[in-house]
């Protein structure tokens, strides 16, 4: 029993620290709110240490096969923890200036993180669903955290209604798979679908709903409607949170369900993912051009990027899965920096969320303009940034499985995408600033954001370590 607890030690640590922060925050006066902040950061750091210290190559199943502790969950948990920690550092000043620097923020963030980590370690449909709901409900509340203004409330409502619908579909799909196979355990479902007889129609029917649910969580076309509105309406720190760590959890979900449990239906979900990927890349990149709000623009960019990621996934081999995972990790690191710069530029009463707010940034601060330049070229997939190798790996996976036409579509849409990223660079470097107020931010946020930006370049010049880690995670987890 004690040995079993080791497998979920990181989750336990996050749960305990969420409760501790909740209680401690009650007794902390308003002026000492940073105690809760640092407590949260210490908890995240400690959990990172736990994840690293307990990592092992061979997968360990625990609690009657409800959870699994393998390299996949370890690596994804690690990146999710890092992403959440960075998100809190980047957004501290922003939250303080808006009266959002409150215990609820930290507690809800920790709970959503807990949900993500449960998803990453799930080996059973019930555990997966549990983690998904914990994550989603916390995120709905976080979006609505700024309850006095209308945009966040509206965004939260949209997110909740559409999210609930997606959860319902997912659950419906799971129930059909359960009906067809008689199992909820992912490995047993896999065995059943690989040697399937008879009720294949029911299985495929269930698969359609499961894929819909997954597509919603990833935010790919045609289940993308919530993405721009939520990205736009939510306070920027929450947008940052939604745009990063949950993508890792959604990737784990996709991998465990499609590549694991429903491996036997590979041919069926491959076709569905092709449609989702192509639509997302085309629509995401085209609509992003028309945006004037950078959060909306990045929302459409997310849609396009997730479509690109699915292209690696649908290659449906180890090569493809690890390429897709590398893509998600690279995307998360890039996204963190993009919203980080946005948070850095915003101050009391000013949201740097219009693309024009970046005008002349090079004159105001060459360094942050340079960081944003790296971010934009990484999103566009121009070497020598991390984003290029992510795209490269995915294209290689697709071509390897004979999807040359898909790779051609993908690279052509990425040229369309390059236009709107270039426009941001153009505003930063070619135009004169309209706003000349100095950029102030806490030293730790500056240092971490700088490191984040440089990491995109360093991993771009030496990509093999990150790539190797993702390959290791996928191959050691027996897909």
């Amino acid at each position, binding site marked *: 029993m004690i040995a079993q607890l080791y497998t979920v030690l990181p989750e336990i640590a996050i749960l305990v620290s969420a409760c501790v922060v909740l209680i401690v925050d009650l007794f902390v006066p308003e002026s000492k709110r940073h105690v809760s902040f640092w407590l949260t950061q210490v908890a995240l750091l400690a959990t990172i240490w736990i994840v690293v210290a307990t990592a092992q190559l061979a997968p360990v199943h625990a609690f009657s096969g409800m959870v699994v502790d393998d390299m996949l969950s370890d690596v994804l948990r690690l990146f999710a923890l890092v992403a959440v920690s960075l998100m809190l550092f980047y957004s501290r000043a922003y939250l303080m200036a808006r009266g959002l620097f409150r215990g609820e923020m930290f507690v809800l963030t920790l709970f959503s993180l807990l949900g993500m980590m449960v998803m990453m370690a799930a080996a059973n449909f019930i555990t997966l669903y549990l983690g998904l709901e914990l994550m989603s409900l916390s995120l709905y509340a976080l979006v609505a955290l700024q309850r006095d203004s209308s945009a966040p409330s509206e965004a939260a409502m949209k997110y909740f209604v559409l999210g609930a619908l997606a959860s319902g579909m997912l659950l419906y799909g799971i129930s059909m798979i359960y009906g067809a196979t008689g199992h909820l355990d992912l490995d047993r479902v896999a065995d059943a679908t690989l040697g399937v007889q008879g009720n294949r129609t029911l299985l495929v029917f269930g698969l359609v709903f499961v894929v819909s649910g997954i597509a919603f969580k990833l935010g790919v076309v045609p289940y993308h409607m919530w993405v721009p509105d939520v990205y736009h309406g939510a306070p920027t720190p929450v947008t940052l949170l939604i745009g990063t760590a949950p993508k890792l959890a959604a990737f784990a979900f996709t991998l465990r369900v499609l590549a694991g449990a429903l491996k036997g239906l590979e041919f069926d979900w491959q076709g569905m993912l092709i449609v989702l990927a192509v639509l997302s890349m085309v629509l995401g990149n085209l609509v992003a051009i028309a945006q004037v709000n950078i959060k909306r623009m990045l929302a459409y960019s997310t849609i396009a990027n997730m479509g690109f990621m699915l292209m690696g996934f649908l290659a449906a081999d180890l090569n493809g899965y690890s390429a897709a995972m590398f893509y998600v990790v690279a995307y998360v690191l890039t996204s963190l920096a993009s919203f980080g710069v946005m948070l850095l530029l915003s101050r009391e009463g000013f949201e740097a969320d219009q693309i024009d707010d970046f005008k002349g940034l090079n004159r105001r601060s060459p360094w942050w303009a340079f960081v944003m330049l790296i971010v934009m070229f990484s999103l566009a997939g121009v070497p020598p940034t991390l984003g290029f190798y992510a795209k*490269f790996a995915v294209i290689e996976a697709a071509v390897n499985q004979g999807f040359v036409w898909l790779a051609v579509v993908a690279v052509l849409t990425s040229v369309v995408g390059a236009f709107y990223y270039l426009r941001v660079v153009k505003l930063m470097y070619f135009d004169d600033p309209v706003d000349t107020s100095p950029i102030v931010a806490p030293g730790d946020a500056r240092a971490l954001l700088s490191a984040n930006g440089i990491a995109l370049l360093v991993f771009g010049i030496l990509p093999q370590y990150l790539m190797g880690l993702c390959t290791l995670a996928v191959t050691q987890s027996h897909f």
Partner: protein
Amino acid sequence: MIPYLSLSIWVPILAGLAVLVLHRDSDAHRARWVALAGALAGFLVTLPLFTHFDTTTSALQFVERGEWIPRFDVWYFLGVDGISVLFVILNSLMTLLVVWAGWEVIQSRVAQYMAAFLIMSGLINGAFAAMDGVLFYVFFEAMLIPMYLIIGIWGGPRREYAAIKFFLYTLAGSVLMLVALVYLYNVTESFALQDWYRVPLSLPVQIALFAAFFLAFSVKVPMWPVHTWLPDAHVEAPTGGSVILAAITLKIGAYGFIRFILPILPDASRYLSGFVIVLSLVAVIYIGFVALVQADMKKLIAYSSISHMGFVTLGFFLFSPLGVEGALAQMISHGFVSAAMFLCVGVLYDRMHSRQIADFGGVANTMPKFAAFVMLFSMANAGLPATSGFVGEFLVILAAVKANPWLGFAAALTLILGAAYTLWMVKRVVFGAVANPHVAALADVSRREFWLLAVVAVAVLAMGIWPKPFVDVMHVSVIDLLAHVAKSKL
């Protein structure tokens, strides 16, 4: 052994990063000196490439090989042969000249300007030295970033349009090449170019790959009809940007033809050679006429570049040693001549802030030294014997006549057209009576400008009078290349 190729890549890049630290306007003067030192060091490390070069072998020299991305078998694999070595040196020399040329002209964001050129120089050297498909692509694409910024920040009135057009055109051309590279990797399990030279490929596959590579390189060269970004980019770019664009980056496109298309896809190349030759002749003749009617000097030189580059692609696809060597000589000569022409226009622009031919006239009266330089470079641009321009054009025309006399006839039209548009421009700008008070007030070239132009003038004359060292370096490699082309891979 000293890794000269790595040095030629990383010395300028690191110098560029060092210059960036001095970004404050008060540090501008220090930034210039650091940049000059970096560019000089970058040039000096490429000299051993020439002095230690073995002209008797076509094998790769100065090879450096290290594992880079083991997951995809990508290597940090550098090496030069007779074809690429001269461009590494040419590029490093041009960077030195450009840093020097921007000395007083650039007053805003000096450090970023210098850094952009230095980083660009390292990336270009990388593209010429890379012997691994991914490594080449990384350098090939990465150089778009500094050039985008150079055009966009320090360019003319329509710089934003020109910069974005430049970037998107080139990117759109090259993304399909990425798919082609990945496809070749899937066939050969390797990204090494030498492995790709050996792999058999069926004709339909070769044609598909040809299309992908051709799009990438023909945009870069640029060939008619995908040339329209070039006049915009040239006109809007600052002088230094135009020099590097014309002298070096266009050459990377042409270099791609002989490094990738001809040896990897020999059957498709022969099958489609007629198509490429027609496009090249259109560039030579039609674009030559277009150049004739330009009112803007920079635009005229831009179109003249396209026309001259048409000669290069024509020479490649004749598949004879004369043609390929002529094309390569033309590339190097055009590197010097176009750079010199843009520097000359820059000299005038700095004084008059106009590039319109109509605003000038009789410059020779007030700027005699300058007029002499202009005359020399114009003659070279028109391909007069004893200048570098003659060598390449003559060899290509010779090869064309051997292949088909009518082809030679069409190609030789360039001698008339080139002389027409260049000399007519010179007549209107330099000669005649002093056109207006602005021209009357012009001061002759400063000492910096004089030595700048003198360096290029010496190169132009040296190559025109005694081209043997240049041709010797490339000869063995060209023969080897043509052996690859002659061997069917079906």
